[in-house]
């Protein structure tokens, strides 16, 4: 399967899962909200140009927004993590040319610990940005802290489960294929 087709399928899949599975889960508490859709942005290939990453993230976030009737609410955090992503990858990538040998960030290509740090930081930023925008419209500071903490914990758990359920092969690209 080509990378483009794979990413288009992911685009649709993540939005539908978020809109029709995770958002339909009866709420445990007002803070505990499962958010997983932004994993699409974390899984984007290395090879995409930085501006395109942001534009794709914007469109992705906006599509998500149309399902929840909040145009802009999810687009803003998605663009933020798409902007931060290259900086983080620069720091976390091993010194060998991982970008050339693997196609996208995964526990295989970055190493388990660096990948966990990568996911944790971006998840936290995404949720913080999302809740900040909600907080500016209403709510108090406890709401902000509580919701960011709870949502990040649940997101990390969901991402962990997703990585186990759908192990990506982390295809090693040889020079011959290039």
């Amino acid at each position, binding site marked *: 399967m080509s990378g483009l087709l794979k990413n288009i399928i992911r685009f649709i899949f993540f939005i539908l899962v978020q809109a029709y599975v995770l*958002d339909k889960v009866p709420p445990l508490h007002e803070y505990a909200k499962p958010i997983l859709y932004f994993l699409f942005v974390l899984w984007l290939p290395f090879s995409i140009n930085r501006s395109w990453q942001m534009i794709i993230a914007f469109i992705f976030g906006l599509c998500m927004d*149309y399902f929840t*009737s909040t*145009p802009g609410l999810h*687009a803003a955090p998605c663009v933020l993590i798409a902007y931060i992503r290259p900086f983080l990858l620069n720091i976390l990538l091993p010194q060998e040319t991982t970008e050339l040998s693997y196609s996208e960030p995964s526990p295989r290509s970055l190493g388990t610990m660096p990948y966990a740090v990568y996911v944790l930081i971006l998840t936290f930023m995404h949720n913080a940005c999302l809740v900040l*925008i*909600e907080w500016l419209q209403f709510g108090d500071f406890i709401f902000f802290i509580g919701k960011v903490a709870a949502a990040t914990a649940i997101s990390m758990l969901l991402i962990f489960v997703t990585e186990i359920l759908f192990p990506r092969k982390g295809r090693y690209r040889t020079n011959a294929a290039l």
Partner: protein
Amino acid sequence: MRNIFLFIRRFFHLLLFFALEGAAIYTLYSYNKTHQAFFGNIANEVTGSISKKYNDVEYYFQLKKTNEQLAAENANLRRMLPSAFESADTGKIFYVDSLAKDTLGIRKFEFIVAKVVNNSVTQENNYITLHRGLKQGVKVNMGVIGPDGIVGKVIDASDNYSRVMSLLNRKSKVSAMTKKGLYIGELDWDGKDPNYLTLHGIPKSAKVQKGDTVLTSNISQKLSFPAGIMVGRIADIILDQSSNFYNLKVKSATNFFTLQYVYLTDNLQQAEQQELESKTPKD
């Protein structure tokens, strides 16, 4: 000039980042004010039709409950029929008045039945999608009531689908009154529990008790709700020492988890009322 181009080239990513963030925030801001979004109409049709497909499946799991709800509502309405009462005089046969229009007055509210195709309760701002749109006569600001009580108001409509701001929305404000004493207050949602709403603005001089019924008030016609529709029952009375008003926790009559059919209500005299009100000088 050359320096400007160099600057743009150097900070292109940063500038693009700010532009996209700005676009996102601007869209959200303008949506919150007007409920109109870019491509809102097309997006509404697309998400509506996907939701319809999802609901076709989900609906089967709630058929029994929906059926019970509608049957109970039917029984309630039958109880109100003239034929359910024995007239005071000695005549044994009940004659239906052929001059219905004269004795019943002029029709004020019109009802349209609509299927709920998408509904959320977990967001901070919850919206409902209905499978009825402009082509079927839906207008913005129509009230929405369910079999058990009020649900929300229409904020946007495309050709075949319409978006409803549910009561479970931080921006929703509905005028409601207690059945006992007819005290009028404002109903909103604090974002915590989808089963409970908050009623503000009932003065402390009012005698309220747990279990009192809350109805839509007769000034809620701005949203074209008929007056006296069930909203819920008072579940808890929270005393706010700093003000002269109660904060009442109201258990919502509508169960938002199992909503399948709703009625859109249209106040046919609303335009006339608004026209008159707008004529009144504001000083």
